[in-house]
């Protein structure tokens, strides 16, 4: 059957269309043999474009489809499904990235961007021509989940999954559940705390679907969605469990601002968390409290806003003021970030008489005093002069920071982390609690500093996402595995040596010749073995030598 390729170029409104001369690209593409149709869409991912696409496939008898639009990392599944709905095997679809990797990065040279886009589409066509139909690889899923981190987010996830009937393994490195939240006296915004947390912890302890591993760490993880093999280490003991999905809820740490504002040197300078913990254990009556926000954050080495500290400061300021209305409470800040309903509490704090003053990063406040701080001096921009506030307590609002273990965890689970060392989800908007790696999910402050409300919401979200494949009971993997052409295999065994998954092994042929065979379930499609094979007997589906060479050839 003749190969009939249809090419569809998306304008993505002005995103692509504003830089790339789409008709020009189409004109160029039409001259390639086997391209029977080249069309443009305003938004290829819109509902009506997709139905047009389906019609075109049927109408023109297309047996290969190339869509040039955004990045395959987000939209490829959508178009693949669309092809499938039109009766075309999903593997006969090829995605070309002309938005992120062309229009957006080359917006400054439009003519060249157009030329490049045409070239990229050519490459896509070159590969599409050689695509072969495949079926997804099906794997059964173990109906159990592992939650790493026993904070609020992890507990929420664990409870939720357990209540859906899944076996849950909850691993916590400390000796108690609750995480950072257990340090707080009250939670924002309703300022209840303890009670709720102990309720959650009790629920965990009572749930027979949940096994809790305290003082434990993850030592090793292998496998994939459906069957991860995780080794849990508790002191000298090691336990291996097989789970279908994993939720990372390791939370964040709190910055201890040593060297800043006399922290660690002056006895009455502490962090918000330490104050919260202190006030939880005993009633302190401070009369003159100064809080300094943005300590160690929004600075060069930590440029992000931790998002929760302003609210914690306000919460604690209110609780000081409420327990002792005579107390003078001052919050020195750079900007106040209280989004959503928290704004109410900000107003309430002002009504209570809590002072809010802005300081600048160029002239940060100074704490004066020996042994303990008695005065905070800051430069007031409005007044245009230094102002002294006397104090008997200085509370520093420090940001949540990524856990030190994140780097080693990222390596263990093969998931990415951001420059700030927080875990990086698959897509901030489209796949917020998932990783690009199937079967591993993320929630809470491990992803980004969030307050308890969001931690809980994300805990639910991650649980819901993790439950989807487990409810289905089976998962389909993209069949981009490697396989060996027995006829050409020399049996040298290079592929066996390089395979990270032990997926390749010898197989005896009748004619007294040794060749190799790839276990399609174990193979994860990295292609290490393909590059090690000298004569190309080993090939990776969807990334074969022929396909990639054809792309190079189309570019040359």
């Amino acid at each position, binding site marked *: 059957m003749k190969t009939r390729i249809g090419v569809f170029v998306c304008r993505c409104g002005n995103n692509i269309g504003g830089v790339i001369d789409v008709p020009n690209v189409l004109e160029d593409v039409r*001259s390639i043999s086997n391209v029977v149709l080249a069309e443009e869409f305003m938004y290829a991912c819109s509902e009506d474009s997709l139905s047009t696409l389906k019609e075109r496939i049927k109408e023109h008898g297309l047996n290969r489809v190339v869509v040039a639009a955004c990045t395959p990392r987000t939209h490829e599944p959508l178009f693949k499904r669309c092809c499938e709905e039109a009766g075309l095997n999903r593997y006969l679809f090829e995605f070309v990235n002309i938005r992120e990797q062309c229009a957006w990065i080359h917006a400054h040279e439009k003519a060249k961007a157009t030329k490049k886009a045409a070239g990229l589409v*050519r490459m896509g066509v070159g590969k599409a021509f050689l695509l072969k139909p495949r079926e997804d690889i099906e794997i059964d899923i173990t109906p159990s989940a592992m939650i790493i981190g026993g904070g609020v987010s992890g507990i929420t996830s664990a409870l939720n999954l357990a209540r859906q009937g899944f076996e849950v393994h909850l691993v916590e490195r400390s000796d108690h559940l609750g995480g950072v939240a257990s340090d707080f006296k009250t939670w924002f915004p309703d300022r209840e705390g303890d009670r709720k947390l102990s309720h959650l912890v009790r629920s965990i302890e009572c749930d027979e679907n949940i096994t809790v591993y305290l003082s434990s760490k993850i030592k090793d993880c292998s496998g994939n969605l459906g069957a991860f093999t995780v080794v849990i280490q508790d002191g000298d003991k090691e336990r291996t469990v097989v789970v279908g999905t994993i939720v990372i809820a390791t939370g964040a740490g709190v910055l201890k601002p040593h060297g800043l504002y006399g922290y660690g040197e002056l006895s009455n300078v502490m962090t918000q968390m330490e104050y919260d913990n202190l006030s939880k254990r005993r009633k302190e009556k401070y009369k003159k409290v100064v809080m300094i926000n943005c300590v160690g954050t929004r600075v060069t080495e930590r440029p992000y806003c931790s998002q929760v500290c302003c609210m914690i400061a306000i919460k604690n300021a209110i609780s000081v003021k409420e327990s002792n209305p005579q107390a003078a409470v001052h919050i020195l800040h750079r900007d106040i970030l209280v989004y959503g309903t928290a704004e109410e509490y900000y107003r309430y704090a002002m009504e209570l008489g809590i002072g809010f003053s802005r300081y600048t990063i160029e002239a940060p406040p100074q704490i004066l005093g020996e042994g303990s701080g008695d005065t905070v001096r800051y430069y007031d921009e409005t007044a245009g002069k230094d102002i002294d506030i006397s104090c008997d307590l200085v509370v520093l609002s420090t940001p949540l920071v990524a856990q030190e273990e994140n780097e080693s965890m990222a390596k263990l689970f093969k998931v990415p982390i951001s420059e700030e060392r927080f875990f990086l989800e698959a897509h901030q908007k489209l796949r917020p609690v998932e990783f690009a790696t199937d079967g591993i999910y993320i929630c809470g402050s491990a992803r980004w500093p969030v307050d308890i409300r969001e931690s809980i919401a994300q805990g639910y979200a991650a649980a819901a996402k993790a439950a989807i494949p487990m409810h289905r009971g089976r998962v389909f993997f993209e069949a981009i595995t490697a396989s060996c052409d027995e006829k050409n295999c020399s049996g040298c065994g290079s592929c066996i040596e390089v395979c990270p998954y032990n997926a390749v092994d010898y197989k005896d042929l009748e004619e007294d010749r040794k060749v190799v065979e790839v276990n399609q379930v174990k193979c994860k499609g990295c292609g290490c073995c393909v590059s090690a094979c000298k004569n190309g007997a080993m090939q990776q589906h969807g990334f074969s030598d022929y396909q990639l060479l054809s792309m190079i050839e189309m570019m*040359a």
Partner: protein
Amino acid sequence: MDNREKGVERKIITRDDLSKWLEKIKGHFDLYAPVRSTVVNFGKIERVDKICLDFMNTFLPPKVLFFPQTEELFSYARDSEGIEVKRAEDLIKERVLFGIRPCDARALSILDMVFGGEIQDSHYIEKRRNTVLIGIGCTESLNTCFCSTFGIDPLSGEGTDIFLIDNGGYFTIKEVNTQRGRSLIDLGNTFIKTEKVDHREEAGSVTVPINIASITGNMEKVQEDFWNNTSDPCLSCGICTYVCPTCHCFDVEDEEKKNGGVRFRTWDFCMSKDFARMASGENPRISKGERYRHRYFHKFDYFPKKYAVVGCVGCGRCISYCPVNMDIRKVLERIRENIQK
């Protein structure tokens, strides 16, 4: 031994004058002559003093100049209107090939039958027509030479336009066979003298002929396993074919470029496993023995049947360059023995 006749009147040119003559020729024609690098080969001459005169024979035969290893046949361009084909430009400027040996001159006449017979191969013919051949006789031979087997006289200029014989300090102009040759001689009039010289008329060492009379026409009688056993040491490389002055098989390949491409023909060799492989994957000559048999049949059976001439000229290149020292003479002898059995 001394075979020189005393005092015969001959046209001669001294070594120094030869350079001057060639320099003059170079002014009118593209000049090709043997040049030495890692090996001696025919090359286009930019400087006459680069010409190598003390060579036995070149590594690659002169066929490279008429039937190059890679030759563009045509190029094509595709646009939305259709496909436009452009024939490769052929040699227009006339050229002179200096230093061809008698065996190679015979080989060219064999190639003429192939490319200029029933099917006229314009690429070859054009080049052939525009090339004047200056031959040099062999006063010495290599132990691999066996041209006399095929009735080739190492001191005869058959098939050349001009034929010289190297006499050490000077060259004798033994033959001027064509009008084109005469006009080249005219260019060198001032350098060519007629003198009474001691003239050498025979090769210094005569090449040893082998008896092939009973072979051609009887090849079919050779048993199959003879070929399998004889071909054992063969590595299936392409050396013997590529250095053979009469081998002329080629493959046609397209080099695709953006919206078009070029069609080339390239030398191919019958000892290659893929030589006879068809598009379907079927391969009639899958074993080395079958391929080896084909190679000998082509030269000593198909050729005589079709063109009434053996497709070998006894230049001995395939013997000298074979990495496993296979000897065509030895094989022919064994074939004869096998036929007689």
